[in-house]
């Protein structure tokens, strides 16, 4: 079976050890994470892990079941890229003098739909949000000027289809 990008979305309780528990599932199977992002979700007190992996569909199905098996995981889903809307954010820190000495940087920023988020006498910072490829293009174009720092976030994504977490939680509350 062919390997593809899968985005795994995990809705969880907020527990101190859960990150360890979830990452251990990948470690045990020798699967590398492309990215992992944790955040709050649309539901109060429910957290969300967004994990990107490149594996086969058979593998991702089994992984999601193992993740769901964890006591504090409410529900986990997996999606292919075309089933989600997804973005990453990157920050580029560049010496301020280049902004004046290398005027074409300003064109690069404009053409790539990036933004300058801050300017100080020593450095300025560009923010670019988009798909991995777009961030990589900007990275390549800025590299020749010299980057003081570069950082890219993990993927965040929302699915096109519904994920019925609220219903599940309501059903539990009713059953109680």
């Amino acid at each position, binding site marked *: 079976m062919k390997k593809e990008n899968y985005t795994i979305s995990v809705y*969880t*309780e907020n527990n*101190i*050890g859960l990150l*360890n*528990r979830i990452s*251990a599932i990948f*470690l*045990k199977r020798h699967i590398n994470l492309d990215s992992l992002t944790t955040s709050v979700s649309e539901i109060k007190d429910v957290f969300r892990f967004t994990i990107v992996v490149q594996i086969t569909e058979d593998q991702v*199905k*089994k992984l999601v*079941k*193992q993740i*769901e*098996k964890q*006591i*504090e*995981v*409410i529900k986990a889903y997996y999606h292919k890229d075309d089933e989600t809307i997804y973005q990453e954010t990157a920050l580029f820190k560049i010496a301020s003098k280049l902004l004046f000495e290398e005027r074409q940087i300003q064109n690069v920023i404009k053409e790539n739909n990036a933004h300058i988020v801050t300017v100080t006498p020593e450095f300025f910072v560009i923010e670019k949000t988009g798909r991995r490829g777009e961030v990589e293009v900007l990275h390549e174009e800025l590299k020749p000027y010299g980057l003081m720092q570069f950082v890219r976030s993990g993927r965040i994504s929302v699915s096109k289809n519904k994920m019925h977490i609220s219903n599940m*939680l309501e059903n*539990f*509350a009713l*059953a*109680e």
Partner: protein
Amino acid sequence: MEAQTHVSPQIEKAVKKRITGAEAIIKCLLAEDADLVYGYPGGAIMPVYDELYKFQNEIQHILARHEQGAIHAAQGFARTSGKVGVALATSGPGATNLVTGIADAQIDSTPLVCITGQVGSHLLGSDAFQETDIVGISTPVTKWNHQVTKAADIPEVLAKAFYIAKSGRPGPVLIDITKDAQFGELDFEYKKCKGIRSYKPVPTTDPDSLVKAAQLINEAKKPFIVFGQGVILGKAEKIFKDFVEKTGIPAAWTILGASALSTKHPLNVGMVGMHGNYGPNKLTNECDLLIAVGMRFDDRVTGNLEMYAKQAKVIHFEIDPAEIDKNVKADVAVLGDVRKTLAQLYPLIQANEHDEWLQQFRAYDTIEFEKVIKNELYPQKEGLSMGEVLRGINRETKGDAIIVSDVGQHQMIACRYAEFTKSRSNVTSGGLGTMGFALPAAIGAKMGAPQREVVAIIGDGGYQMTIQELGTIFQTKTPVKIVVLNNSFLGMVRQWQQLFFDKRYASTEMINPDFVTIAKGYDIKARKVTKREELDTAINEMIASKEAYFLEVCVEKENNVFPMIPTGASVSDVRLS
């Protein structure tokens, strides 16, 4: 004013209930009916031990000789009693010594609650004396774990711990409690946990899956059942037997499923897997329907998955959704508690007989008897065989005993040849294969089923991994019967070295001490047998003994266990020699 002259009932109640975290732990255990715990004291768990001293009339603590011994005893207790086993240990090395038992309980689905002491919360992360991150260490091998740093959290966390350990597919839970949480005070109120919103212990059964399963079962010409520990854990022995008898389907067991159906039952066709019986392994690849009941298709059961039951439709009765399609794809997955799903299935299935098909199993039995079993149970050679020891134990116990085995050749012989007439009779480390399991597990097994005879079958290698637990037997006067089958080798590894490594016996020969003298040092009656003519009377004397008894049997040094499915081979390529 009147209001000042009497304390309101709520306040009075609260004042009365103000207790320490350590006392709360004991009260939680008692509320969960856990009045027998195994453990080993140490600095960070001392407040709990102080309470154990005060509550010694209500709760019994068994002092092991090593934390590994304590947890294996708790496992043995859980396996025979069906209750949650409890193990206590201190922080640091006390906690890490539990890890093997926790991993064993996780892979064999044994309900345990382990309570470890931890350094004070102000010291966490400071590399304090006996500080170790046991929550981090135990995460991959626990069903759930949690660290408590406040006394007030203890009742709720322990209630969750017991609920999680025993519900759904059981497993081990570890609760790490800092010393300040044990000393701290709380208003004690205990409420049993009835549900956790993110945890669904028993999945919903799709009624359609039952209809489809029944249809496949009713139409099958050569159906074959493989049952595992799920039948025992689900307390489903009765309905399972009814199901087998109504359908007339031959049923074989995994090592952990052993004893869920009497070995004497006419439809019980033996054990599957690497050293299982010839017929069930061969015919796995001839059946037209494979009905898996509460088992997980372990690699030791299936051999090469590419050549496992490819011709058959598969029905999988299972409580853990993560097991469906994990190793073997199920045509029909029946999720749920097997006791309920089999009861729901029962009216949908037709009464049937499969005599011709059953005869195929019996024909293989005859071959296996001639080529393997005869020599094992009735050896002609001068040296004693492990099988004839098991035959003697069967005779003396009439198949009523709980057999606790360690790991290796003797384990395979014990599981192959022991007769089991009652459920919860085979206590062995199946998934993890933990040498050293049997001696401490036998102590717990006896305490979990005090009316039953408990015989531990152990090799000379594994015995020496936890031999210190003879001290626990000595101190508690637990009447377990210990049989060491001594071949002066790490026999199973030696067998593989013989078969697959050109007899290069690297570090498998054992120069052993005088085991009888050691047992006598613990005041345990002991006897050594080297000749066949002494065996029967020795086994008779052992089983008749009201106290603990140690029997060493010196067996043939280089016997092998057959049948055998070599690694990577198909179940139907099972070898008889």
